[in-house]
């Protein structure tokens, strides 16, 4: 299965179109349910960083989920089963990239599902969808 890849954060201009696109998948505005994050590296003069799940093959977030709400995704990463999720936030803590976000309104984690919708809106080719190598072999 395909996965989202951050090609070059130095090309990022900080427009956050990816963040708004991620929310728009749900047909709404804003960024509450957004699984990708763009922020400065300590002030805009230092450039930007793009944080999003990189689809680990052995995801640490999955290991710490106490209710089995995170299922292994084919091609890497996880899929969240919201019904099982109790909102403990352990997965957020476990991710070394801090790529699991939190929806304050639902009190549930927000995790990239690698659909690639955001990449279609990136004006500067920072993001791309990559076919999984192992799947091809």
């Amino acid at each position, binding site marked *: 299965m395909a996965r989202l890849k951050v090609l070059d954060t130095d090309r990022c*201009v*900080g*427009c*956050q*179109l990816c963040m*708004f696109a991620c*929310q*728009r998948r*749900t*047909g*709404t*505005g*804003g*960024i*509450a*349910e*957004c699984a990708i*994050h*763009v*922020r*400065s590296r*300590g*002030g*805009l*003069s230092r*450039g930007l960083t793009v944080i999003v799940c990189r689809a680990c093959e052995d995801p640490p977030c999955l290991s710490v989920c106490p209710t089995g709400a995170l299922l292994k995704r084919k091609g890497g990463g996880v899929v969240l089963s919201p019904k099982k999720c109790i909102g403990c936030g352990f997965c957020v803590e476990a991710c070394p990239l801090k790529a699991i976000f939190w929806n*304050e*309104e639902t009190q549930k984690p927000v995790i990239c599902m690698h659909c690639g919708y955001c990449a279609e*809106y990136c*004006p*500067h080719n920072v993001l791309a969808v990559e076919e999984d190598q192992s799947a091809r072999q």
Partner: protein
Amino acid sequence: MLANDPLKRVLYIDLSTKRFWVTERPELFIQNIGGTGVASALLEEECPPEIEPADPKNPIIFAVGPANGLFPIASKTVSMFLSPHNKLLGESHAGGRSALALRLAGYGAVVIRGKSDFPVYLVIDSQGVKFRDARGLWGLTVSETGRFIREREGGSGLRSILRIGPAGEAGCTYACVVTETYRHFGRLGLGAAFGYKKLKAIVIVGKRALPVNDRKLYKETYDEILKRLQEAPSLRKYHDIGTAVNVLPLNKLGALPTRNLRSTRFEEAEKISGEYFAENLLGRRLACAHCPMACIHLAALRTPYEDEPYFYKTTFISYDYEPIYANGSMLGIGSAEGILRLLDAIDNLGLDAMSTGVVQAWATEAFERGLVSEKDTLGLKPRFGDVETYLKMLPLLAQKANEFYAALASGVDYASQKYGGQDFALAFGGNEMPGYHTGYGAHVTHLTGSRHSHLDSAGYSYDQKLSPEEITPESLAQKLFEEEVYRQILSSAVCCFFGRSVYDYETLAQCFRLSDFDYSVEDLKLLGEKILKRKYFFKKKRGFALKKLKIPKRILETVSPHGKLEEAFLRKALSAYERLLEDSGT
């Protein structure tokens, strides 16, 4: 409007009592949309008629609109206050992240009342307001203030940090508020209004979802608008070279104000052109939140430390057409690096770069003519082209080092009333001149615009499209009036004016409908007139009259691309504009 849209929430903050509360005011937004419409209504409610700008009763208002957080290039916040600079309507718009942060924190507007008795900064989030002690930040530059607050507060990437520098603290009447290091509430002195209130900074953090009434149509409308924005040829130039692309064409046209507008062509224009900056200094490009244009251009300036060999610093400094004009050609400075050093100092002091350049240009000519002496300037000898002296004058001015610098800190109108030289004091309605001497259109905009800004009705663009024979005072007034009416709606959405070729009335109505605001194109035109008139009457109540406006002689002496400008033509256009404001059918 939609029942669950947080836009209707107005956040009231009282700095005197350190209290805050939220009032839901759906009618306010239904009647005025948001942005300029809502802010002007709130200003009318909040600002008593006979106060001075430093009075604690002078409110600071911020407003966003329905398009913020939903549509691309809708990335501006509108601020309103009684202007410390011209004591009339203070209205300033800024990009960056503040509009998104405010909208997604769940507010449509903020009203700041009162005055703190010690320096504070505010943190605004979905929970409300936290008052933070800013005594330890008072006196710091804009960049230092940003750095300390950035490290102390949370929400990186979801927030905006609005702050002032020493100029705002000292009450320099054209001090600005800086946001996200590189964007500004630049004009008419919001920074001084912050300073009067002992308000050093505001952090806004937000990440809500926003509702629409038709999810499928929302996605389709969004895609259509984004496509049009990306394909619009008029937007391409802002994307590539940035607004500085205007330097060479305006110079060629003979419309680039040079050396306090003694001429309109600068022999060193090539060396301060957008092309020169792009080829030699451009280090990074940035965008405001939710804008595909990325028009923010940062130069990487490498400067050596004098006291130690092989010891350098590299600073990223943003540049745009207006700051380049005001601190370049207007001061006879033909060095891009020199301009950047000035802009860096101006930004850190928290001054409006446009007014500052025009003030220094006036001071130079006043000094040349002997209206002011070395005693006034504290031994400095301002001279066109002399970057080092201008750099020394900036902190003196921002801190009002003596009577002369305090006069400069109040703008050219004030300084020239005190020292003479009104004929070459380039201000309109008390606001220093933008970088266009293109013809009647530009100056009628500067005179009639509710903010006395080139952006109010863009007469400079009208000048470049029409030949002089095609323009009459009445037709010009009519055209600029219609444009200014339209821009009230654009800035109520709140869209960046660079998106104007895409966001016509029809498109705006379509966007508003998705938030359940039901306006026809005709409704929007009437509402635009109503908002514009409201702003005009706010000024009129405070003694403003178009017929009383001073016209600096210099603009009549220096030939424009439309020839020598006649005062009678300008006066006729002002009368025509006044009639439109007084009589229009609302």
